[in-house]
């Protein structure tokens, strides 16, 4: 156990300088924690996907090979990675303090994000139109849920970008705005990571099954 030190003449009892906390790093840390909980949400859905993708869960309906298209998913993957790249360019511009650069990067990221979500939406709508909607079988239920949950996150990210565009113009790079921009970067990168897992786990593995 630790030995008990004696107090001496240099013992300090109070520390008035200790109050300044690095607010940006505290907020970023909290956001990492939030993302951990978000990762657990996706984990739960992925686990359910694994349980519900056996032949029994198809209830005579289509399976992974029929509802996914690895080539189309590949384009989606490129688009979402491009969006992350555009946002990274915005972060570089943030370091240089360029409002126009940040705004441009975010705008491109948003456009690509909207393109990605529209493609996913189109896929789900096409399946539904064929009579293979989410209420067709347990497998389709979890497939729709996985894609829609990811799409919902993307939608929230796009809304967040829109708000940040306004805040950059109105407030400039205040501590709050910088913290939000950094957190948004993590959020966006995280959603792309999730998509890559979806692509490998659902589109690639499913296509070979």
């Amino acid at each position: 156990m630790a030995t008990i030190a004696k107090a001496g003449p240099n013992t300090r009892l109070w520390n008035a300088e200790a109050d300044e906390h690095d607010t940006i790093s505290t907020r970023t840390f909290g956001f990492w924690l939030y993302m951990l909980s978000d990762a657990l949400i996706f984990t739960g859905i992925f686990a359910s996907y694994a349980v519900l993708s056996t032949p029994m869960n198809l209830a005579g309906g289509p399976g992974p090979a029929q509802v996914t298209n690895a080539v189309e998913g590949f384009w989606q993957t490129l688009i979402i990675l491009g969006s992350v790249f555009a946002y990274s360019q915005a972060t570089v511009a943030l370091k240089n303090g360029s409002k126009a650069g940040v705004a441009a990067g975010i705008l491109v990221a948003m456009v690509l994000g909207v393109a990605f979500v529209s493609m996913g939406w189109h896929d789900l709508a096409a399946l539904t139109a064929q009579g293979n909607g989410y209420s067709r079988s347990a497998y389709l239920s979890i497939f729709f849920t996985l894609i829609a949950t990811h799409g919902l996150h993307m939608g929230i990210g796009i809304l967040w970008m829109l708000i940040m565009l306004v805040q950059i113009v109105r407030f400039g790079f205040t501590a709050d705005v910088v913290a939000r921009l950094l957190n948004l970067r993590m959020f966006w990168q995280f959603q792309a990571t999730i998509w890559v897992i979806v692509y490998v786990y659902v589109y690639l593995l499913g296509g070979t099954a």
Partner: protein
Amino acid sequence: MQVDLQDPWSPLFGRLTLDSIPYDNPIIVGTFLGAATIGLIVVAAVLYYKKLPYLWREWLTTVDHKKIGVMYIILGLVMLFRGFVDGLMMRTQQVMAVGPDSPGVLGAQHGFLPPFHFDQVYSAHGTIMLIFAATPIMAGLGNIIVPLQIGARDMAYPYLNAVSLWLTTAGAALIMLSLFVGEFSNAAWVGLMPLAELPYNPGVGVDYWMWAIQLSSLGTTFNAINIIATIVKMRAPGMTWFRMPVFTWVNLSTSIIGLTAFPVLGVALSLLTADRYLGTDFFTVGHGGNFMLYIDLFWIWGHPEVYFLILPPFGIFSEIVPTFSEKPLFGYLTMVAASFAIAGIGWSVWAHHFFTMGMGPDLNGYFSSATMLVGIPTGVKIFNWLFTMYRGRITFTTPMLWAVMGIFLLLFGGFTGMMLSAPAINYTVHDSVFVIAHFHCMVLVVAVGAFAAVAYWWPKVFGFKLDERNGQFFFWTFTLASIVVFVPMFGLGLEGETRRLDYVFNPQWRPLLIAEEVGIVLYCISVFYFLKMIYVSLRDRVPAGDDAWGTGRTLEWMTHTPVPFYNFAVTPQINALDELAWRRENGLDKVKPQTFVPIHMPSNTAVPVIIGAMAMALGFGMIWRIWWMAGAALLAIVVAVIARSFDKNQGYILTAEEIAKFESKTELASMIAEQPKRTPLDHVEAH
């Protein structure tokens, strides 16, 4: 593409009709009259004494971690009482409805509760006790004590903290509402599948259960994030990891559980929500659904949740036992390691809740051994407490009595838990009241920890101690009641009484059921002494010193009693584990800071309470399928969150002169004191 319901539905009121209000049930009408009377008296008192502005400014819109903690605990205690009344009803029903000749009243064939009502009572009892009583009380204690123990000004995110509180409150309010408008779930607190699915449960009961848990679990997740960030980022200088008090350590481990487990519950409930509202097929019987998936997802959260609840009491005992033994905690490092071992193992034992599911001997064997492993760190903790007491100078104050009782309960619950962890035994007592008695011993540790903590830290928060005499009456009646209720229950379980019986078919069980009823009456007496304890303490208000017990060891006993809203006038520099005990040994414990520097404080905000109210409206709208209400509430939440991000308020500065004034007259800065309006800053430089 929502599901078709057979019931009438109108765009304005959804499924809600006048028939939804159970005014023909005398029990509910009586409860309603009682609750309404108390509510009216409270509202009238607030208005009469013109306390509404005070309540709004100092409490409802507060971001102070101590006030939020107090409100969490009040919420938890109110719900604890509600859950207790459910327990009282269940025990009374079982003692009345024994054997075919037992009489029935109030429309029941036997006893006084028809099966449909009885099923709601036990479902509500479990849901309320675990999620709306134990969880808020432990969250509240963590909120109040953790920042004080690490020398922080507040939580890392004061605003998020208030949001957590009000989301939890919204969930609790929905459960209370289910009593008077509509019905509650009759599918047990775990949500038995496919019983909780729409075809078998077309009413709003399951929806109430689902949405109440969903809202409050969101609040708990946010709270977990907040506690972890506070501990990692906000520690005072010199507060290294291994100088942190054990209560802070357990809050870290328990919050990691909370952060990782609650999202899984969110997934399980969301999938059920999709089944019930959109017609998906996750847990249905047909269309390839798999209802065992639900029970897996639920217990992947559910078992960590149990440790999420039990770890804070372990921390509480680890604070109380050294204080009242006047010795340092024995085995500090092993205590910390044990907390994290328990948290870690807690993640890998969930399937022991359904050994009988038919997983096969391999999986049952794995989950059985993993479960037995929990006994090792828990045993380490028990021995640590015992060795702390060994040759200590023990004073049996109320908190210490509760702590000792907690250790006994833990032994009782732990040993029966070891029995249950063996699948061979588990098969014979599965779903019997033996299991009920086992886990009540465990959750009673949580209740006992809560009472210990309230008695122990009450003076720090309010400036005066709880009445010792009535506190001990409360303790002894509660302890006696626990023995008299749960020891016979173990016996009945071994005799083969299954759980959730609204009618007991075997008259030979009557004597033990009567014993349990006697225990419940003792619990009622203990509730009386609890209330008397609060009343007498509030009346007498014997002032307590800064170190209220005289032998405190940790940082929270170093600041003023009652603790000022800014916690520490000057942030302390930490020199040792058990800083206050170290300062006392060096004769420095009475030294107070002399010069002050301005403190940056967060401003109050109404956004969290608005989000809470809107979340409740969202839940209510979804439950009754009033789509406009749910949509409007969701929109309002989104707008509130966005609007707040445009708010330039950056808190305010508490000047050195003001702090000096507060330090000389501490009651001006106490929990109940009113603060003047402060001018907020509108700009803070990035650094």
